[in-house]
């Protein structure tokens, strides 16, 4: 891990929705190869932070720098091309596409043979060339497609026999857990430098969670830089190099899992001790 130059650097990131400040002046650093988890109660601003970092929402202030490059307000498609892949909190697969096609769409930015990188005036003809190459399919295009399919199979085999027997099934026909797996497979197909996972085990049972945790652990071992949002604290504590805790849009703690676990501010945020002091939070008379 190189500590001096940050791989991902977030400075003063802020997003307001009307009167509510969902993300308030957040700073975040992530080193290459690091596994960082963001935890916090519902509504703490975790997903909004993800959306700001992945171009799905524009911040009202602050910057995001990725590998030394300012990526604030870049579109999601540009960020994908830079090697940032994400999954979505509630799962967003392409419902009518097969499992295989979903994963191949993940590799979209890596298809080079069908999208020649021409210099300026010629690149306006890019879409025409793309249609022509898709119709003519010279050997380079066929070989690329073949290579990507083999890679997709390799990615899907990470999930054991969960997805391999269902390669050609449309994803709307899959179970919820399998759809989440497809989403992660799709993210891996991008060949990401940075992977953002938004609650990958939400709605999964214990076995499925354990399986997913093992998979994410493997990804970490392979050296991938990962940013994880998760509510299941056991998993977070076991996987993370570092944990950031958010509450009400701000970072309230940041440190090694063991440190964070015992931080009074964190305990307060999760259990809400502070509320006991407030008069309006006292138990109403009628209930006594």
């Amino acid at each position, binding site marked *: 891990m190189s500590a001096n130059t940050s791989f991902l650097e977030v400075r003063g990131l802020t997003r307001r929705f009307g009167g509510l400040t969902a993300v308030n002046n957040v700073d975040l650093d992530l080193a290459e190869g690091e596994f960082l988890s963001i935890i916090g109660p519902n509504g703490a601003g975790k997903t909004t932070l993800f959306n700001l970092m992945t*171009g799905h929402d524009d911040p009202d202030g602050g910057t995001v720098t990725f590998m030394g490059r300012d990526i604030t307000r870049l579109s999601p498609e540009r960020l994908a091309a830079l090697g940032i892949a994400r999954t979505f909190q509630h799962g967003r697969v392409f419902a009518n*596409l097969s499992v295989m096609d979903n994963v191949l769409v993940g590799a979209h930015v890596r298809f080079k043979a069908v999208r020649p990188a021409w210099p300026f005036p010629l690149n306006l003809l*890019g879409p025409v060339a793309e249609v022509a190459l898709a119709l003519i*399919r010279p050997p380079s295009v066929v070989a690329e497609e073949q290579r990507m399919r083999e890679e997709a199979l390799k990615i899907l085999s990470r999930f054991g026999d969960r997805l391999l027997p269902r390669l050609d099934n449309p994803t709307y026909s899959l179970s919820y857990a399998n759809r989440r797996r497809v989403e992660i497979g799709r993210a891996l197909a991008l060949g990401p430098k940075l992977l953002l996972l938004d609650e990958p085990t939400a709605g999964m049972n214990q076995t499925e969670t354990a399986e997913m945790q093992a998979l994410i652990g493997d990804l970490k071992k392979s050296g991938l830089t990962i940013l994880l949002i998760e509510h299941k604290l056991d998993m977070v504590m076991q996987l993370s190099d570092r944990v950031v805790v958010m509450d009400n849009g701000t970072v309230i703690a940041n440190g090694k899992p063991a440190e964070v676990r015992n931080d009074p501010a964190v305990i307060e945020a999760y259990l809400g001790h502070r509320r006991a002091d407030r008069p309006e939070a006292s138990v109403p008379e009628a209930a006594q």
Partner: protein
Amino acid sequence: MSSWIDYTINGIIIGNIYALLAVGLALIFGVSRLINFAHGSVYVVGAYAGFVAVTQLGTPLPLTIVIVVAVGALLGLGIERFGLRPLQGYAHIAPLLATIGLSFVLDQLVQLTFSPDPRALPSELLERRFQVGSGTIGALDILIAAVGIGSAALLYYFLRFTRLGWAIRATAQDRDAAQQMGVDVNAVNRAVFAIASALGAVSGLLVGMYYNYIDPAMSFQATLKGVVAQVVGGVGNVPGAIAGSMLLGIVESYGIALFGTSYRNLFAFILLVLVLVLRPNGLFASRRQTPPEPMTGTFIAPSKPIQISYPVLIGIAVVMALLPLVLPNPYVLQTLTNAWLYGLLGLSLTLIAGTVGLISLGHAALLAIGGYASALLSLDLGMPVGASILLAGVIAAAIGTILVFPSFRLRGHYFSIATLAIGEIVSLVILNWESVTRGPIGVAGIPPLSIFGFELDTDRSIYWFALAVLVILAALQFRLLGSHLGRTLRAMRDDDIAARSYGIGLDRYKALAFSVGSFAAGVSGGITSHLYSYINHETFNSQLSILALTIVILGGMGNVTGAILGSVLLVGLPEVFRVAAEYRVLIYGLVLLLLVRFRPQGLLGTI
């Protein structure tokens, strides 16, 4: 100067009439998130109900209005019952398509009952005029203004102070929460449809009296004007709809003063597209916000498409190619040629509306561009016909894509409305650009089909030509769908946010697909113009756009084989059974209505 006062008064009066339509549309959208395309039909039925009352029964005006209100309200209940209620839980665009089907059925029934000829709707009020400053105002103007303002006031009172009014506003804000609180949402919908349709029907009556002229074709224009006024004011916003209507009325009136009547609708539709693209929440939205909800426009019912293997498809193509040798019946060949040409249109729309999920309601404009391009290239520039058709495809692709490009950012209903408006704009530009298009006279003497200098003058050769073009373009589309582009386009349709996250630039791929699709439509239009030898701005009208949509839904959205099958069934079968033309439109409307309700995945399944 005095004429400007007249134009202003005229604009406000027309604005009042639009307001009666737009308020109804806004109320309906508010509670059911539906843009009711049958609203213009209610307006026409209102006008004819008034016509029957006045001319057959000799009713006085107040009684006529009561009759029209009752007829309108009943019709509104019917539309709610058949167009909306059965489709809860369907794709958001489904009720919209159903109301398009309903409007075809209603308009056609009016036309069958009263003939398509215009009728006079006499009114004793028409003659009376009063001097106001240097201009004049008619008694009828005052009546229209009174009805407009009166119903707005009544509506305000009703929505604000009655129990049902509360329920309506609650339902508009949050349908599910209202239902949880015990509001009978269906009753609210019924009430809203009845009120909205009563207003729409009265609007039809007033317009009929104002111009002393009614005809069944007013329906489509009325829907469009109501939609324009509503979108300008902010969809679902009742005061906004009134303001939008006034603005539209005045803009039109001044436009007529400056440029003449044939430009009138052009202003309305350009206003619509500008507002949609620049201020999608309407001119009066308090601040920039994302559209109220992502009403995805895709109409893709998950289904297992029926797989027809390539050898079978090739076999069918061969049989079709041999048909003229076995069955040299000119009538059958002409009918099938027609079906092949509509099949090209179907290929185009099934790619754009099915594979990419952009439901275009103005697809006939591409036929018009292709038709005019090929006709004018061959006639005025002496280009050989085969080359002109090919170039017509390219021109349709280029112009079509450029026109629709700003609308790619719109989602769901909004994109559909924009394409509808763009389709109308194309037709109006053709009508008004006389130096190039010959304007209302149309283009006559278009040279017959020929290829490499050989004239195709037999039914058989024309049949083969159309079939060959169809087979080639269908084969290319199959190949396109089987490439990385096929999955890219479908991914974008299924989830545009996730697609962007994986590097798919939406504008690029929408434009790419739209160009490819428009090429086929342009070629179809080009061939058609040479077959007809005469075209004008109404040859490729908006009914064709809806027929195209019915064809692709019937076949299965995105399904290439389905588009051709749909075309053969919808264009070929009525011909075989020699169904009279006016019943055909009725059938198309019914088919669309039934498909949306009972078989949204079409015959062969969506892809």
